[in-house]
């Protein structure tokens, strides 16, 4: 890997520009990701939040170029990682990026591990492939990695199969695999959603510590606004395939400007002091993403809707130099009480 090159050869670690992904289904074209743009620096932590179907996972799979084609297709945009456009790479070149430079961990650690291969074999696979290690060196490194992610008796555990690990341990093994080649970016797609809170706390703590140690950047995709609050430096809020608000984590939580962000934060119990009050709930349900959306995708559920929202989609505009939101009425949006 190219640690010397961090200076000025490119401005950002990751620079996503107008990324657009669509799925062709029987019902029509699903606009899963609609021209999203953002940048990330080395060592940064970005939280991506949104509800199911908002395109947060598809956006990550698009960066990794893991969208199944057909039915899916990246239909536009650029993804610059360390200065090179990932969408222009050949399949072979991309294979060398995956795992080595960008690693990804998934929600369900059971289905993302191969049940008939030992955990050790699966960790060593990447080391042998990307770093040309021989069996012995790779095994030693795999053991080191399991120790790093806090699995006790690592040497014996290398020969275990995934079913012999608990859910938390499997996710640790996945992280070990992700870290095996010192990636510059780790994309974590709902890595703790399937886990219990005490195990979730372990995993969050682990990733934070590893980040400090290794200095990699992390994209943490989740629907849990609590995890993001403790984890991320910046947050992208996604709705119906678009980023609708983005900014530093403290700013987003203290001073949200998009009605959807306001609603999401308001619907959390415990976000309010007075717990006897009703929860704020956003009316209705997320839109169907089949076909072209007209106007603001959130308009049908929005409490701040004006006439214009129905036919004219708002664009992301600055609230200050760090904070952007896509809403025509953002000057009038207030936190719900």
């Amino acid at each position: 890997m190219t640690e010397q090159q961090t200076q000025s050869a490119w401005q950002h670690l990751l620079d996503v520009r107008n990324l657009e992904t669509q799925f062709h289904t029987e019902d029509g074209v699903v606009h899963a990701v609609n021209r999203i743009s953002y940048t990330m620096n080395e060592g940064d932590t970005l939280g991506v939040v949104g509800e199911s179907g908002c395109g947060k996972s598809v956006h990550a799979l698009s960066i990794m170029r893991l969208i199944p084609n057909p039915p899916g297709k990246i239909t536009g945009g650029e993804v610059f990682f360390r200065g090179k456009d990932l969408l222009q790479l050949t399949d072979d070149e991309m294979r060398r990026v995956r795992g080595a430079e960008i690693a990804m961990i998934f929600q369900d650690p059971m289905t993302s591990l191969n049940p008939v291969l030992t955990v050790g074999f699966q960790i060593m696979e990447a080391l042998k492939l990307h770093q040309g290690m021989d069996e012995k060196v790779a095994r030693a490194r795999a053991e080191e990695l399991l120790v790093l992610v806090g699995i006790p008796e690592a040497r014996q555990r290398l020969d275990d199969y995934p079913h012999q690990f608990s859910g938390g341990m499997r996710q640790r093994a996945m992280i070990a695999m992700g870290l095996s080649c010192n990636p510059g970016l780790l994309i974590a797609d709902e890595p703790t959603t399937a886990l219990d809170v005490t195990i979730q706390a372990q995993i969050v703590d682990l990733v934070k510590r590893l980040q400090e140690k290794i200095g990699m950047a992390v994209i943490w995709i989740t629907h849990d606004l609590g995890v993001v609050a403790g984890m991320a430096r910046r947050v992208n809020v996604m709705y119906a395939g678009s980023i609708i608000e983005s900014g530093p984590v403290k700013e987003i939580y203290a001073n949200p400007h998009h009605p959807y962000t306001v609603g999401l934060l308001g619907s959390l119990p415990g976000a309010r002091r007075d717990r006897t009050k009703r929860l704020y709930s956003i009316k209705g349900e997320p839109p169907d993403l089949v076909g072209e959306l007209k106007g603001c995708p959130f308009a049908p559920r929005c409490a701040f809707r004006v006439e214009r929202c129905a036919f004219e989609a708002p664009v992301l505009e600055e609230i200050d130099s760090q904070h952007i939101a896509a809403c025509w009425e953002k000057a009038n949006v207030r936190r719900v009480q």
Partner: protein
Amino acid sequence: MTIAAPATPQTDSREVVLRVENLKKYFPIHRGVFQTHVGDVKAVDGISFTVHRGETLGLVGESGCGKTTAGRTIIRLYEPTAGRVDFLGTDMATLKGEGLRHIRQKMQMIFQDPYASLNPRMSVLRIVGEPLEVFHIAAGEERKERVAQLLELVGLNPDFMRRYPHEFSGGQRQRIGLARSLALNPDLIICDEPISALDVSIQAQVVNLLEDLQEKLGLTYVFIAHDLSMVRHISNRVAVMYLGKIMELTDRDTLYSNPQHPYTQALLSAVPVPDPVIEEKRQRIILEGDLPSPAHPPKGCNFNTRCPKAFDTCFDVDPDIVQIAPGHFCACHLVKGQA
């Protein structure tokens, strides 16, 4: 929601709807050619609590702690291994046949997975109307009318009653399940993780609906969940379970402001707070390791393998659950019971 004063057994004069006493549910493990009985999975291992009319009791814990088994054993979907379940003055645990069928009208359950709990081949009319038919309460036009009322009650358009489950979203399906459970005017509803499969904005809708219905119909809930912040919002009292046992049981505010059991403390500390300013300053208690298997619980206190405060006694003697303040129960050697 109307919040009555924190309900404690001494001060609460309301009628006891449900009294669970030393309830156990073991699943036997059989091995070998002769299927010899080699042990038990102690899913629920002696839990006791009461629920008063109009109250919501939260039952929280991590996966595998036995909270769902407890709910299912109370409603007799499972045969209890031991213990009593007094529901409206009748012991549910020993009832059989017609008696059990009769009393089940008054105790209903809603389930976690809104996709699996509705029959995909039945229309909403049949799903919601089935209980009315089974108990010969209403038929024909009358049943249709009643179903329409129920759908309206849970915030669904009665015109949808000819539709099938796949035409509804997760939140709407959960409403259909709720309408069905309300069809027989139950006193008690056991809600088994009713919102964990739903999106955040939809969760709030369903929780608000549950609270409105409670107020309107005087329902009593046992609310089983792993989401501690939602339980905090909806419950009057909360029981924390770990490996088949209740570790701590008290009113909601005391539990969250002054937890006594080391497990409750760790559990609460693990819950992320949606506020970056608080998160920055928080010190977490990170528990080591995983939940032990309920087939081989550790000797002594069930929590001793992960407890940061465990000492000698904890590895020998299983602590009894004792009352440490009025209405506050805790099972830990470190807290003293009231004389």
